[in-house]
């Protein structure tokens, strides 16, 4: 199974190593560096790198490569999934998972890793259990420890490890019993230049923050469970009950966790709540190009669109851009040719736009590809799929729970950078008219492009609203 783990930062230094079996020389990472060099971007480093004696499986998150060394056959997803779990655990422990943080807490990191794997096989990966075994460092505890000499290490086996509900610790007590459920949906769409949707998918998750005393047994049901095409659950959810009644019944872990993630079938037509108007043109003769985009709302059910962010990878020929936004700020990086425009909120009365001109490299012909525009946005309190939870009373709970009705829950993006799943995209843009190289035979474009367009129109839009609606459960007694 997993032999060793190396953490490598962006500049290629190994700043932590941990071995579960005999030590593997860190020279094994040379193969990794080689692959890293070959791949232009960190993203492109292959996750599986074979070497003569070992195999390196890596995960890239938070600008850190987590490289696991394995020696024999093992399902690669097993390792990858585990590495992700390690990252999640670090994040859970330290708030952020960064090189500095790991270096500062190297002892805790080591202790945690020690508990997570035994001889390369996962031992305890539930954060509830780990936190009982090794308490996460807080300032208060550090102070207390230095004074009293007590330690961060629990000396009793967490009861959860043995029980049938390994994810929950026992003896949980809260004075305020509360539970929050955030529904976060992401829409992922590819839109062509004329504005019609090529694909759109909705992916949703329900993140929960449950702080309840004792061993609560919760049930949740949906107003419209049919919407959910494909679901995956936290292990606490009783699958049988879902199969038969479409009700979520579970004993929740303590604290934050992801209850389920679901997929809304692509067959249902998805209304994209934003649109982008664009007018980008390059002229053959001059070294100037025109650039204009406008973003506007569409079918938002009265909710505001926030956090709008537009990015576009400009063609290589673009030297610089002089643009004026009607709102927000924009940056154009002349090296990577990446234009990004932080729009902020969309005011339906005054649509944000970005206008200006582009400086093109003189002498070269105009670029033949159209830039793709990516758009990300957020809408609070709107589940784009129409999914909603039905509050359920909590039965069999000894201690009465205070009623909480959370009318609003702050959306929290997924742990990853929020733009991960956000492509909006392009469409089959009209084919460029003839290039300079004069050729009598006029080639026809592959598909049905519209050949008379003089100018390529890039296109775009799409986006990912993420919406949330909170729903708290009510109480009995």
């Amino acid at each position: 199974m997993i032999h060793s783990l190396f953490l490598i930062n962006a500049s290629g230094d190994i700043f932590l190593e941990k071995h579960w079996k005999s030590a593997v020389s860190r020279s094994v990472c040379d193969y990794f560096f080689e692959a890293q060099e070959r791949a232009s971007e960190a993203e492109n480093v292959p996750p599986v790198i074979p070497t003569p004696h070992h195999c390196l499986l890596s995960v890239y998150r938070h600008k850190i490569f987590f490289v696991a060394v394995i020696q024999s056959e093992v399902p690669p997803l097993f390792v990858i999934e585990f590495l992700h779990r390690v990252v999640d655990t670090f994040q859970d422990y330290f708030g952020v998972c960064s090189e500095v943080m790991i270096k500062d807490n190297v002892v805790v990191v080591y202790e945690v890793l020690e508990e997570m794997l035994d001889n390369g096989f996962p031992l305890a990966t539930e954060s509830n259990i780990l936190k009982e075994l090794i308490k996460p460092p807080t300032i208060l505890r550090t102070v207390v420890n230095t004074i009293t000499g007590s330690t961060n290490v629990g000396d009793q086996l967490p009861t959860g490890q043995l029980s049938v509900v390994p994810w929950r610790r026992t003896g949980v007590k809260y004075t305020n019993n509360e539970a929050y459920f955030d529904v976060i949906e992401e829409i992922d769409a590819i839109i062509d230049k004329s504005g019609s949707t090529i694909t759109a998918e909705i992916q949703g998750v329900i993140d929960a923050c449950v702080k309840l005393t004792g061993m609560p047994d919760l049930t949740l049901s949906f107003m419209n469970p049919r919407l959910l095409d494909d679901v995956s659950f936290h292990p606490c959810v009783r699958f049988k009950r879902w199969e038969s009644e479409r009700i979520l019944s579970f004993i929740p872990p303590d604290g934050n966790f992801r209850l389920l993630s679901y997929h809304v079938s692509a067959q249902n037509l998805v209304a994209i709540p934003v649109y982008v108007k664009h007018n980008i043109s390059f002229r053959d003769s001059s070294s100037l190009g025109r650039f204009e985009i406008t973003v506007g709302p569409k079918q938002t059910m009265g909710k505001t669109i926030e956090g709008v962010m537009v990015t576009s990878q400009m063609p290589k020929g673009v030297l610089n851009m002089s643009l004026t936004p009607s709102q927000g700020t924009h940056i154009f990086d002349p090296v990577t040719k990446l234009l990004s425009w932080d729009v902020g909120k969309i005011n339906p009365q005054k649509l944000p736009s970005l206008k200006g001109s582009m400086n093109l490299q003189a002498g070269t012909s105009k670029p033949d590809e159209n830039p793709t525009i990516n758009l990300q946005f957020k809408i609070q309190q709107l589940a784009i799929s129409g999914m909603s939870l039905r509050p359920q009373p909590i039965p069999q709970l000894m201690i009465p729970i205070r009623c909480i009705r959370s009318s609003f829950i702050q959306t929290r993006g997924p742990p990853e950078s929020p733009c991960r799943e956000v492509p909006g995209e392009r469409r089959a843009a009209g084919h460029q008219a003839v290039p300079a190289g004069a050729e009598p035979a006029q080639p026809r474009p592959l598909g049905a492009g519209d050949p008379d367009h003089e100018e390529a129109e890039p296109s775009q839009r799409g986006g990912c609203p993420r919406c949330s609606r909170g729903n708290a459960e009510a109480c009995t007694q």
Partner: protein
Amino acid sequence: MLESSKDSAKLDAMKRIVGMIAKGKNASELFPAVVKNVASKNIEIKKLVYVYLMRYAEEQQDLALLSISTFQRALKDPNQLIRASALRVLSSIRVPIIVPIMMLAIKEASSDLSPYVRKNAAHAIQKLYSLDPEQKEMLIEVIEKLLKDRSTLVAGSVVMAFEEVCPDRIDLIHKNYRKLCNLLVDVEEWGQVVIIHMLTRYARTQFVSPWKTDDDVVEEYNENNFYESDGEQKEKDRNVKKTYTMDPDHRLLLRNTKPLLQSRNAAVVMAVAQLYWHLAPKSEAGIVSKSLVRLLRSNREVQYIVLQNIATMSIQRKGMFEPYLKSFYVRSTDPTMIKTLKLEILTNLANEANISTLLREFQTYVKSQDKQFAAATIQAIGRCATNITEVTDTCLNGLVCLLSNRDETVVAESVVVIKKLLQTQPAHHGEIIKHMAKLLDNITVPVARASILWLIGEYCERVPKIAPDVLRKTAKSFTNEDDLVKLQILNLGAKLYLTNSKQTKLLTQYVLNLGKYDQSYDIRDRTRFIRQLIVPNEKSGALSKYAKKIFLAQKPAPLLESPFKDRDHFQLGTLSHTLNSRATGYLELSDWPDVAPDPAVRNVEVAESAKEWTAILGKTKKEKPTEKFYSESEEEEDESASTGATESESGSESEKEDKEEGSSDESSGSSSSSEESSDSESDSKESTAKKTSGAVKESNAEESKKKAKGISKNRNTSSSSDTESSSSEGSSSDSKSVSDSRSDSDSGKSGSATSSKKEEKTAQDRKTPSKQDVFLLDLDDFYPVTTPVAVPTAAVLSPSLTADLEGLSLSGSSVIDVTTQVFVPTKTHEMLHRMTGKGLSAHYHFSRQPDMFGDHMVPVQVTVTNTTDQKIENIHIGEKKLPLGMRIHEFNPIECLEPGGSVTVSMGIDFCDSTQTASFQLCTKDDHFNVNIQPPVGELLLPVTMSEKDFKKEQGMLTGMNETSATIAVAPQNSTSLVIIEKVVKAANLGVVPSGQDNIHRFAAKTVHSGSLMLVTVELKESSTAQLIINTEKTVIGSVLLRELKPVLSQG
């Protein structure tokens, strides 16, 4: 800082050291200082020391041994977390010398009450195996035992161990198959992955292929059968009969894994997907695709692996993923490798219906700024064009358009693809070829140039005007071309020479001349070859006639295939599949068997065993507990078998045990009953038969079987030694059973079992109460069991310890083995009278159990009774007044003793081979009493077995000073050999040595403390006298023993 007395300083130091380890700096010089802290009370320091040990123990083996005793102590800690972590560390320090200790620890932990500890034991199996593969056989035994465990915590780990150690022992799975299937959902997710992979392999060997049936209709019937009522089912069954019916176990597996598709863990989903792919009927495999598509929403790395697997699947069964076509559309934010994989899948999924949308999609990809991806797209278009004939022309046109692209890589790729396409359609593509000839001026990429030249050469007859012109141009630039292009120029020249020699003769010869002096020998070779072949000269062979045929033969079109085509022989979801090469430890998925092996092997036979049970119950009452207890202590049977007379007694006794068994099982969350009983069924049947026939003699066959199966277990569970002792007591004459099962060398049969039953009975009567107590103790886990605790001061394993270990680890080959006591004295000695003890009374007796507390300790069992009417609390040992060198291993304090209750505890005393008294204080919560224990000399010995030959050899070395002898008168009733043996072993803890002569009896032992041999010979002479000879280095003990043995034999 490590030497500091303060924990905080030590902790700080350890933290720094761990920091060094983490950074990869060498911290091994600190080993001696660190290892000292292994016994630290502070749990964090301890943990950090463990971390350190695991890292460096392998490099500093000698010093690492210092820490072992700490782990051994911790293995007996009441806190399961500490037991488990001790086992983890012990098994993680890769020091070969401790293999036997590890082995014992694993065995012991595998029957621990805590499933957490058992889980760790399963992990330790793998570690031990990688350290010393020799142990395989014994480890398999442990695996077999753990596989029966019903705890979900253990299941994953033990299957992992199984996969590592003995993946080919599929027979071990049979009995556990259904249980594993049913538990699967509750196992933790990592275990699920491993179990699913294992079950996939298993199922491939055990069930027949569900794929043979051609039509899905049959499948449907099967499906229905499963859910519909009996009547209908029968009807349908008749229809289905002649075709394939799925084994219910096969169905069970599929049904139980299905919910796991909903797991949040990608590895589990993938594992289930591959299981369905490899095992499910083709019509059902489709359900996995939805879940796999869902995984595409997670991290980049997960996507990568999943897409690879989908790519393989989509080649074979397009239908599975067709509905999800759009999910594979490439996003501009995807990394290149994901893009290419998606493209691959899209290409695999292309068919007549969706090709037009796909091509439109491809069109956008071609314009991507990621050139590598654009090139891959062009190849994909090429593949679609060859696969789907309707669109070939459209594709070709599209590709030709791309030739005018400004990006060179795109153009080059198009040229190559067009070349391949044209080759498959050698029709009339003159126009395209002309167009490409024109491109030659602009394209610089060698592959593309070579492709164009090849095309022109191949179809030179179709473009008669252009071809020579092209040759002219290239001849001019010949010297600057890439090798690849040069070769094609030569080919072109040769072809033109053959078809159009008028125009091109000179040109060709010019090219050939250039080639002759080229730097590359490949080109020079080719030039020479072509020249000989085409240029007619006097020597030209027969071949030149065929030159035209050779050069302008019809060439078969290349096949455009998916690079994932050849991956399907690897099991999906494995590393080997990802790498497309065998990884070490990859286990081939076998083909379906033609005929399914007997499904009955998986029957756990709950029903059947129940029936048998009742039958047994009907017969004799006491058999029930026997059977149940069987797996734990096989020797038990001997007892109940031989003491047929004491039925009720042993019945009640084992009922007690039964209860304990039950309770222990309960705590481990399972009821042992059906499983264990069915396992030991065959054995118990055998023994049942014996019982009914009332045979006391043991057949050798059974004996040897026990040896194979049970001995190791018996030796290690403390209870076993008790049962052994009782068995030997029960049939004291049958004393060979113990020694026999100990070592092969011993074969002395002690004649017929004719001992008086009365004696037995009384013995048993007396014994019973104390025995119950002993069992109670077992439950409490007091007994540190047989692992010899290394003396903390000893830096390295002392030779005697090693010898002990060897003796314990089943090797019957060493010359002198420590054996278990042949007899347990029933005589108790008073330690504290209830009057002097204010109501607390204490008795002790010598239990003669070897290796209880270490190899120098004499085990003593103390029975404490409360005769007052109040609770007595906190009974423990207080101040000790011991002679020099003597040590006491205290018993664990008794927290509370109820009025009228009594508790037996064991302690160990190292008497230093002397008969001096050990005095100490027995304290209660508010009082203390001085007590003494004085050992009879016979208790200072440990019995050993050896062959007669060895005995004589040893005896020969211990003559003269070391020999004491006496002639005694033997009472007439003592003259039979059986009685003599019985009496001697009663008096002293001696082992019986087989003797060839009837009148000579030999006994051997060694002293507990120093391990020196003690050889006793009793030689019967005429007229009821006997010579008693004792040979030993310890002459003092020898003479005392002589003195004690004398009356034993002379009295009646």
